[in-house]
């Protein structure tokens, strides 16, 4: 089996328009969640979110591109530019033929659906733009990314709700590890912050009206975010031979299905994914210093996740750090694992643990070191990134400092 390393990272999210900006925000414990700004927001009960600000798509993309790029595609291409530039890889010949792109998204072009439904239902129009379908399809971002960078190998989109990005990165990891692809571009993107996107979530009554406070006893729900995280996964020898900068190593993953409930999480399902990732990575639980939690800030997730971690790690659960950066950037749904992987990279490479902000009251059911409110310096050898989706689909990645 090949070793797999990350040689490029890029992002755009409520905390910043680059990896550097995002990591500074995470170190400072800055909150990117604020009042939502879009049409008809006054008709929503939930009026906050981690919205990307000051992103001028019109200036970056030309008119032909704008008619084809939904906001989730725009975020993807923006983040990919940073990741590909950092990696220094150019895809030609056999490298291009074998390398591909696997991305995660839950909703794809949600605002394209929203705008065009509004046009035909509310405005009574009987004609839509000819590119509505290629603009909204879930694989649009992966396809445009492949065209932009000449990626001709295995390429597709994974959609497993809140675990989409982790499942996507697990696939990319698998392909590089098996020798099928020398490099893969992977990660995920989401842009659901429009009237229909938030209205749908409102219906579940699990959203907070004021803040995302994971693990805090007074937490009252999740807050949506938007953006993208894109990475270059590369075979270790390939990266070393060209002197590439290595951000960290991806050492394992596991997936599991609760096979139980469409929305309620399961401790056993989560625990099986976590312990499976440790087994796949061949690491002892004691080596894990940091877990980027799924940590949605809902009553159901947080206590289930903490119980799963306690089960898998036993006494070591009290030694490791576990934080939820959703408190800062919100829940990016299908893109969330990708942005959260940055917190793992920061922990492994820089020795800085992103905090769980908004933490106000200890919850006896979440009695772990959740790195409350302030970032911390610590040397971490192995980190995990958890994602537990609606539908009971779980995906956990394991990473190691290089």
């Amino acid at each position, binding site marked *: 089996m090949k070793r797999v390393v990350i040689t490029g990272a890029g992002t755009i999210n409520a905390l910043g328009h680059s990896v550097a900006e995002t990591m500074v925000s995470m170190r400072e414990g800055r909150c990117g969640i604020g009042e939502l700004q879009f049409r008809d927001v006054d008709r929503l*009960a939930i009026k906050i979110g981690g919205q990307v600000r000051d992103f001028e798509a019109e200036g970056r993309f030309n008119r032909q591109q704008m008619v084809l790029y939904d906001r989730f595609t725009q975020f993807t291409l923006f983040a990919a530019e940073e990741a590909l530039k950092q990696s220094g890889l150019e895809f030609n010949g056999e490298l291009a033929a074998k390398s591909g792109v696997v991305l995660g998204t839950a909703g794809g072009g949600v605002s394209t659906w929203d705008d065009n439904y509004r046009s035909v239902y509310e405005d009574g129009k009987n004609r839509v733009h000819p590119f509505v379908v290629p603009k909204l399809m879930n694989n649009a971002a992966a396809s445009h990314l492949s065209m932009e960078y000449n990626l001709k190998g295995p390429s597709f989109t994974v959609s497993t709700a809140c675990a989409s990005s982790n499942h996507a990165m697990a696939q990319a990891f698998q392909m590089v590890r098996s020798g099928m692809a020398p490099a893969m571009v992977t990660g995920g993107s989401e842009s659901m912050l429009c009237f229909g996107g938030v209205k749908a979530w409102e*219906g*579940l*009554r*699990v*959203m*907070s*009206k004021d803040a995302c406070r994971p693990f805090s006893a007074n*937490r*009252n*729900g999740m807050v949506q975010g938007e953006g993208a995280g894109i990475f270059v996964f590369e075979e270790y020898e390939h990266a070393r031979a060209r002197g590439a900068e290595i951000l960290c190593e991806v050492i394992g993953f596991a997936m599991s299905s609760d096979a139980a*409930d*469409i*929305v*309620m999480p399961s401790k056993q399902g989560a625990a099986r994914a976590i312990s499976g990732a440790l087994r796949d990575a061949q690491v002892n639980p004691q080596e894990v210093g940091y877990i980027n939690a799924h940590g949605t800030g*809902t*009553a*159901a997730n947080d206590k289930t996740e903490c119980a799963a971690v306690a089960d898998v790690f036993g006494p070591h659960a009290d030694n490791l750090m576990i934080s939820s950066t959703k408190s800062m950037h919100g829940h990016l749904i299908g893109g969330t694992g990708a942005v959260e992987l940055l917190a793992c990279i920061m922990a492994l490479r820089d020795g800085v643990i992103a905090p769980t902000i908004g933490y106000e009251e200890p919850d006896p059911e979440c009695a772990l070191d959740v790195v409350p409110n302030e970032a911390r310096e610590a040397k971490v050898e192995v980190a995990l990134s958890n994602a537990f989706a609606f539908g009971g689909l779980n995906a956990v990645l394991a990473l190691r400092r290089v």
Partner: protein
Amino acid sequence: MSTQDKVIAIIAEQAVLEPSDVTLESTLEDLGIDSLGLVESIFAIEEEFDISIPFNANEPEKSDFDISNVAAIVAGIDRLMAEKA
């Protein structure tokens, strides 16, 4: 139909029971309605009475709407209807 009869009909449908099996003293838990069923019941009540019920599934006990049993739900609806009028 009275508020009470409408609420009992909604809850009975959610619990897959006959309305006669639902009493004012019944709790949703007694009737086998889980958290998802509760959210659906609240939605159905909002639609039936054209009201907005303040309810957050993360902190049901803190919501300004008592769901401890059928009688409490009926009283809460009557209050919201009166406020609307």
